């Protein structure tokens, strides 16, 4: 019997508490910086695409919503096309975790409703942003051993010169 009165009083006290509900379109909710929303493809600090089309995101994706095709120019790998079907995407963030070059990132934006389902298929032009996203200084080709024009083998950051296997000198 007492518990009934305690419950009644406790519920009554909610009269003086703020609403939990946020009146969304008028009042924007705060989204954490690591909120898993719309997926973007980021660029190097130099402005080049980060994606090296390793397919790891497409493999990690549990709903198979990512499809891409590898292409290569002078040692640099890049996706010929990169397509995310957002009508399938479940925003799990596995692609972001799988990505070895920080190219694919999830952003705190969820306002991507469409009247037409076809418009939810985002192409590379739609996904690519001009910035670096969460990792402003990271540049894959500056830290990896791959040779590209203007950076030969052994010229990456914290990388030694390659050993000359034809010489006996130490």
């Amino acid at each position, binding site marked *: 019997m007492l518990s009934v009165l305690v419950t009644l009083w406790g519920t009554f006290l*909610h*009269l003086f508490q703020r*609403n939990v509900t946020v009146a969304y379109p008028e009042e924007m909710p705060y989204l954490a910086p690591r909120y898993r929303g719309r997926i973007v493809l980021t660029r190097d600090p130099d402005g080049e695409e980060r994606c090296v089309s390793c397919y790891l995101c497409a493999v990690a994706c549990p709903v198979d919503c990512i499809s891409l095709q590898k292409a290569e120019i002078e040692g640099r790998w890049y996706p010929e096309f990169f397509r995310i079907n957002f009508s399938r995407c479940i925003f799990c963030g596995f692609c972001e975790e799988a990505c070895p070059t920080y190219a694919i990132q999830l952003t705190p934006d969820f306002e991507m409703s469409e009247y037409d389902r076809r418009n939810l298929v985002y192409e590379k032009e739609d996904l690519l942003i001009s910035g670096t996203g969460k990792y402003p200084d990271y540049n894959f080709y500056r830290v990896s051993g791959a040779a590209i024009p203007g950076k030969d083998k052994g010229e990456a950051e914290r990388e030694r010169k390659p050993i000359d296997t034809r010489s006996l000198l130490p």
Partner: protein
Amino acid sequence: MSAEGAIVAGSLNIVLGLAVLMAAAALLTWIERRLLGVWQDRPGPNRAGPFGVLQVVADGIKLLFKQDWIPPFADPVVFVLAPAIAMVTVMLAVAVVPATPAIGIIADLNIGLLFFLAMSGLGVYSVVLAGWASNNKFSLLGGMRAAAQMVSYEVFMGLSVVGVVMLAGSFNLLEIVRGQQHMWYVVPQFLGFVVFFIGGIAETHRLPFDLPEGENELGAGFHTEYSGMKFGMFFLGEYIGIIVVSAMTTVLFLGGWYGPVLPPVLWFGIKTGFLVAFFILLRAALPRPRYDQFMSFGWKLMLPLTLLNILATGAVMLAATSI
């Protein structure tokens, strides 16, 4: 007053009373949802019109324009009759409630209290017949529960007001209110007040005593098969029932229209509104008891308490007169 004047005044009272009652019941559906929202830290319906008041209109239009569907397996005559009984009995019960000495349809009735109890007793038929006519096992279970619940809670709801009748010496609701000019009956009849209010909740089958509906076990109980305005009549009946029970509690225990400064009508409205809000708070706070718990609560706790209350009241009155 001439005969015509009396008729005009009487009809005016009836029409105004019904209009106010229907408006209040319709508005109550919105008030309830807003208040529930407040107590659950959410806004509730706040889109249509100022503060969402026009939600009432939207709901009304929706109910009116829905298909008036009678299932082929139902008993059509009784199926239509049941919601009508639900509305009619509660609206007849309103007739005897005196808001003030002047405002009230047949407030000056020497068996006013008995009339109210009779009408709320007849209200059982609506639920039982609805459950029976729907020809659906969940509805039938709901109807049976409603019958058992309302019959058993009717018993001590009737007994709980006996103390008030003893103190006032009348079944006339006007006389009962006049007897509370100096002290509300809630003070000497606190037990009666509590039991009457609990009985009132069971009688209107509101949460936490909505076992005849029991959404999670019976799907909506006796009104599973109802839709459109026939459902709307059950709905309105329930909300008018809340208002009637609150008004009757005000009349019987909280001194009716008596109160300082403000005009009598306002006092009556404030007290009734407070009780209605309490009804909604109960809904927000309490879970529904199991059916056997509910029945044993009624027969093993409420009934002995009521009888004890009558006994004590009688003893005190006897002692007071013999001195």
